[in-house]
């Protein structure tokens, strides 16, 4: 495992490269696309475990932090979706360069999945496979979930999710500032129009039922292949949600094993 900074001097990104620990008879590479905010914090352990699992299965794996998140440069308020997609592009460049592979697979969790969908749809030539893990499907549903999570934090304090107009009128979601501009941008997410443009081999793996799953199933229409379905629900904990202290630190091992099996 090699942690390092990459990107440009103005947009420095932190990444962790996991070299393959087994031979697959050809270079195969995977970029992991993280969720945002508190979901990123809780999911870090699971994303690291997934990277190790895939490296043990023979993949070159790169997980990284978008600009304004984790150890990367920038502030939380600098995060924007176009920038995150550009960061995924930089991570793909970096991993192709490091691994010698010709194409990469993307695995995205929550917001990372929505970002990965757009990248995969626009860069089909470089994307091999795509895994959407508990994906954000529609922006309004996600924004509602974020505000609900902020409202239900078990910290026993009053709710200052909306900062006064004098201080910008923005929001706080479980410890992370969310500007009104960011909120509006995230609310505009809709991955369904991109589905026809995705690489042939992709699948969504979900642990928590969402209202938008019906729309996703409908969008798939008759394209589902019984042997290699695009949509699968699995009984496991949500890597990105902490119901402290009951599930603190839990890693969804069944999800990780399923992704590993699907990738290989």
């Amino acid at each position: 495992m090699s942690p390092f900074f990459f990107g440009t001097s103005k947009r420095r990104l932190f990444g962790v490269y996991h070299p393959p620990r087994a031979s697959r008879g050809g270079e195969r590479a995977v970029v992991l696309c993280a969720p945002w905010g508190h979901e990123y914090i809780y999911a870090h352990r699971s994303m690291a475990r997934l990277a190790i699992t895939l490296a043990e299965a023979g993949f070159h794996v790169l997980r990284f932090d978008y600009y304004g998140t984790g150890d990367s440069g920038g502030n939380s308020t600098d995060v924007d979706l176009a920038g995150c997609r550009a960061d995924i592009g930089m991570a793909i460049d970096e991993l192709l360069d490091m691994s010698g592979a010709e194409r990469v697979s993307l695995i995205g969790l929550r917001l990372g999945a929505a970002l990965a969908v757009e990248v995969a749809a626009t860069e089909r030539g470089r994307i091999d496979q795509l895994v959407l893990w508990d994906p954000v499907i529609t922006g309004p549903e996600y924004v509602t979930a974020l505000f609900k999570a902020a409202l239900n934090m078990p910290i026993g304090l009053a709710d200052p999710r909306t900062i006064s107009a004098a201080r910008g009128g923005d929001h706080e979601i479980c410890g992370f500032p969310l500007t009104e501009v960011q909120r509006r941008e995230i609310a505009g997410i809709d991955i369904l129009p991109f589905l026809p443009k995705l690489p042939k081999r992709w699948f969504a793996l979900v642990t928590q039922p969402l209202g938008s799953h019906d729309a996703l199933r409908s969008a798939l229409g008759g394209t589902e292949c019984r042997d290699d379905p695009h949509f699968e629900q699995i009984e496991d904990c949500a890597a990105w949600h902490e119901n402290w202290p009951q599930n603190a630190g839990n890693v969804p091992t069944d999800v990780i094993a399923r992704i590993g099996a699907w990738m290989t």
Partner: protein
Amino acid sequence: MNERQEDTAKPPREQVVLFGAKHSLCGIVTHSATKVPRIPIVVLNTGIIHRVGHHRMYVTLARRWAAQGHPVVRFDFGGIGDSPVQSAELPPLDANLISIGEVCDWLESNLGQSQFVLIGLCSGADHSVIYAGQDKRVAGVVLVDPTIPRTFQFFLRDTIRRMMRPVVYLNLLTARGSTWARLRHRFGGHAAEPRDGQFAQPQLESPEAIAFLEQTYQKAITNGGEMLAVFTGGHSFQHNYRRQLWDALPNVKFGKQLDLRYFKDSDHTFTYVHHRERLFSLIDDWLDKKFPSSD
């Protein structure tokens, strides 16, 4: 400077370092922005959260302190974040104390500094004070919600607080709540045993635990370390008033080295931005007072 104003500042110089004998403790060094560096700061993990901290708090802090002249290290203990387990034989606490020493050694070798400040929240605070007692290079510790014994005054305040809650009387009248659940479990045959509190809370009120903690804190103080201890209302099951540390460890001679604060309205991880800004300002002032710039 608050979290919203940082974007105008020059980006800090940050470096990935793999610390330790095995070169596998993953950390980020944020280098000082001043010509003459001030005392380095080592930030320890909070529980199992990796080195960026809750709400990315430690990234913000590291860059803030680096701008003020402090080199800052954030790193992951073995088994947390991006650091693999360091020892299959040693208990985690022992392995983690060795890791802190290895980071301090790196700072001494690479930055030429021989004194450090450790900062930690919750388990990070506990690690900080224990390590400070065994390494005289630790010139200061910032302990945020360290684990301390409960006292007579704690229980008195806790009881009064509970009695002030209407839900207590509502539960009494409607046969709900944990007391009724225990009674039902004891006398009602098949009723499930209620959970005992939120989680396995530390029980530090035994004479042995108090003696250990008194020895630990005294060693840190005797070593010459300055101490800023900040408690929040977010761990009201463990501490609930400012002077509890003094009352809980009565034999420790803290002298003027201890600066004690209590933020009743903050939660344990400083979830809200304005609570973090207040904490950051407090630590800034303490650093300026105890470890002033030599510029």
